[in-house]
């Protein structure tokens, strides 16, 4: 189990690197391809709750470390640095969605692999939506910019989920194969936990 947790953590890192080289998809209004959440959501089904939290921490920290923006703003005439979305917010979002996903473990135990596929699509969109809401609130507080939601923004949020929906079965198959390779049977582990 622990070995598989580290395998998932390593795969998360690799998927984050690969993600950097995938350009946005023009036909989906420049929506982005997110691979790391697919790994996290598989982990939420395959790992016990405690290890899912650890995986969410690892993934969220890596994502925040890659994307956190440090801005210089003027407060009362003095220049000061601020972080747009602080380190830790993605971890909370990942852990919350991972917890929701964990609730579907009984279905996963019964062999319903499509749960990962459907929920990965929904949760990936929710991650992008959460980021958008956080930065909108933050920017509104900093420069009083208005809340804007255009169809383009909707496409970016929904498109990311659609892509995840289509990629999830492939991710599921790869990660299940890796679980076999390290001698971990996620479904048996869920049954064991229940008993």
């Amino acid at each position: 189990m622990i070995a598989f947790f580290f395998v998932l953590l390593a795969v998360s890192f690799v998927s984050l690197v690969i993600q950097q080289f995938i350009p946005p998809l023009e036909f989906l209004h420049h929506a982005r391809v997110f691979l790391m959440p697919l790994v996290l959501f598989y982990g939420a089904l395959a790992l016990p709750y405690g290890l899912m939290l650890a995986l969410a921490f690892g993934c969220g920290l890596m994502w925040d470390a890659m994307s956190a923006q440090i801005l210089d703003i003027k407060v009362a005439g003095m220049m000061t640095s601020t972080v747009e979305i602080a380190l830790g917010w993605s971890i909370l979002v990942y852990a919350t969605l991972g917890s929701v996903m964990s609730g579907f473990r009984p279905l996963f135990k019964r062999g319903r692999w499509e749960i990962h596929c459907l929920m990965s699509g929904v949760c990936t969109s929710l991650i992008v939506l959460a980021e958008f809401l956080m930065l909108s609130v933050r920017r509104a507080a900093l420069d009083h910019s208005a809340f804007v939601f255009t169809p383009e923004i909707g496409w970016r949020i929904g498109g990311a989920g659609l892509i995840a929906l289509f990629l999830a079965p492939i991710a599921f198959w790869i990660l299940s194969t890796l679980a076999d390779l390290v001698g971990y049977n996620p479904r048996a582990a869920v049954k064991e936990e229940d008993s």
Partner: protein
Amino acid sequence: MKRFNILALVVFIVAVGGLFALGPGGTQKVQSTFLGIISPFLKTGSELEKKITAVRGGLKTLNQLETENKQLFVRNKELQAVNSTLRDLESENNRLRRALKYRERAVFRLVPARIIARDSSTWWNTVRIDRGFEDGIESDMPVLTEDGLVGKTTTVARNMSTVLLISDENCKAAASIEGTREQGIASGERISTSGIPLIGMRVLSKMANLQPGQKIYTSGVGGVYPSGVFIGAVKEFKVRELDSYATIVPAVDLTTLEDVFVVLGNK
């Protein structure tokens, strides 16, 4: 809930709380460390991507010629950038000498850098370059090409840096308009509705009356960007209730950008 899960939850909350308590300095350190870890992977990925692209394009070149070509290419771009900067400075100098008898400005010290990765996030426009504090780069340094302004550095690791592109909403540059005394603030848009990233110019007076094609340059106010760097050309101009707003097409094609220069300072 099992005891292990409760313990894991407590440790998780404490760890996340610890991260929230980090200020910008701490965040920058974490980012810098992580960029240091990930940079060899990104560089390898970038090389791999280039090789795949070269193979796909049917390009077959000798290693020696390729290396020489790369060096000449970088040198050529550097000279073009210096040239362009000199032209801008020359015209600015002439103007200022005539008007205010300002002292002649020196040209920039430029560090060539290659883009090794683009941000995969939806809401931020950043790229990673293969130069870091080992090459003298610090945060808030202007980044440009021979065509114009690209953005500025933010987080700097040992041999990799993050560049916030001018098409990002958070990247703000004081700008002036060619042939007028109008000044404004150029910054990116949260979401561009067209295929190409656009820049918005705010805080313009209602009397600005900009015409499509008019050129926008950095004004040098604010201290980050030197004056006279080409930002882009006006695409649209709208008069609003309190001010006016211009949409600018960036001078640099930010979507296909490969090589940039970081301005270390004046020569």
